[in-house]
């Protein structure tokens, strides 16, 4: 197994700030905006975005929720391993809100397809956007594209893109892993 560093901690930090600025550009005060971290890996990025927006750009009262998509996935009974659910924590309705889905890697688009179905259980948002740190180009199974993308990556299907977060893996970094 070999791994190649795609983004260092410094590069990740610059990208996160750029993404925060792009969000502010489109959402200004975030009055009707809610951020939704897609479980399991999107929640770290979602937490970071909230912190940067609140602490460095002084946007107050950002509403953030976590959405688990396990029971909405289209590969139930199709994989080798059973699916394990995570916590959903959305203590607000998304009716008429501008929802921003946040996930670390956009690959086939199937997770986001599931999230689009799952979020409907919490109301009818006025719009839904997608923010991802990594966009794996040319590997989509569905017509889904991010509105805010950190870095586009061209990787073959055998390769894996892994995002590390300080709070989970001890460092901020993005690796390309090949078997």
């Amino acid at each position, binding site marked *: 197994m070999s791994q190649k560093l795609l983004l260092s901690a410094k590069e990740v930090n610059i990208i996160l700030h750029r993404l925060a600025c792009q969000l502010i550009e489109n959402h200004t005060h975030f009055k009707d905006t809610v951020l939704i971290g897609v479980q399991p890996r999107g929640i770290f990025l979602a937490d970071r975005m909230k912190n940067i927006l609140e602490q460095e750009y002084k946007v107050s009262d950002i509403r953030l929720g976590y959405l688990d998509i396990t029971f909405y996935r289209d590969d139930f*009974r199709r994989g080798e391993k059973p699916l394990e659910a995570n916590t*959903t924590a959305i203590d607000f309705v998304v009716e008429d809100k501008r929802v921003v889905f946040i996930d670390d890697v956009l690959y086939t688009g199937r997770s986001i397809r599931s999230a689009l179905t799952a979020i409907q259980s919490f109301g009818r948002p006025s719009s839904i956007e997608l923010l991802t740190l990594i966009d794996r180009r040319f590997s989509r199974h569905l017509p889904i594209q991010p509105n805010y993308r950190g870095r586009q990556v061209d990787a073959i299907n055998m390769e894996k893109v892994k995002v590390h977060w300080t709070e989970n893996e001890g460092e901020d970094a993005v690796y390309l892993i090949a078997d």
Partner: protein
Amino acid sequence: MSELSVNHLLGIKYITEDDINLIFETADHFKEIINRPIKKVPSLRDITIANLFFENSTRTRLSFELAEKRLSADVINFSAASSSVKKGETLIDTVNNILSMKVDMVVMRHPNPGASVFLSKHVNAHIINAGDGPHEHPTQALLDSYSIREKLGSVAGKKVVIVGDILHSRVALSNIFALKLQGAEVKVCGPKTLLPKYIESLGVTVETNLIKALEWCDVANMLRIQNERMEISYYPSTREYTQQFGVNKQILDTLSKEIIIMHPGPINRGVEITSDVADSKQAIILDQVQNGVAVRMAVIYLLASKIKQ
């Protein structure tokens, strides 16, 4: 662990503590889902489940049906009263006919103990036992333990007394297995005629004095007298039974601590518990019913994940 160790839920006797924990963790997610504005997930949209009820049921049948529909499964219902069983068809033939219509899972209630075990050996579908005579009622025991866990934080180390007709009760037997598996202390209480002879061999203690049993416990699970399973008289009169084994508010008020009252339903108000107890804050009877849907969703979901594509 994220998979059940069994392919069917035939009884608590056949599952492990890890299985119970997995079912509870999964049920936690489903409990959150059934409290959303839209209470449905599409997980089982390509699964068909048959509910076969060869014995009367209201709560369990509705709870299973709701759980299946919340998971988006297709559901067919069958009750023995309006079926070819009356015309002399055997159980295997009845079920195989239903399965030939491409059914993936069977939820069955049957008056004969062991019916679901028998079925699991002869038909090609995942079986959930929804009560087999006086033998087992695993999903009821799971939802009872789940409700205790929700109320008291855990089941391990808790003292639970099961009061009433232990002899004819599948709820009692499944509860004893489930509670012991999770490390609870279990006592049974009732008229001697309604306590099975070798019940202590299951690791439970026996008490015939209701007040002493209630004074000992954290949770009292009150059972109904199952008159429909009695061919002889096991106690002199309902009035005398109520005097000795019925729980009322006065009794609860004399206890040194506040205990939790559970009942699997249907309640005979004024017999095993009075209305003021059934409707009191100490009773978690309606929580049990709500948890029943979440727990059954978890069991169905986890067994469905084993159905081959």
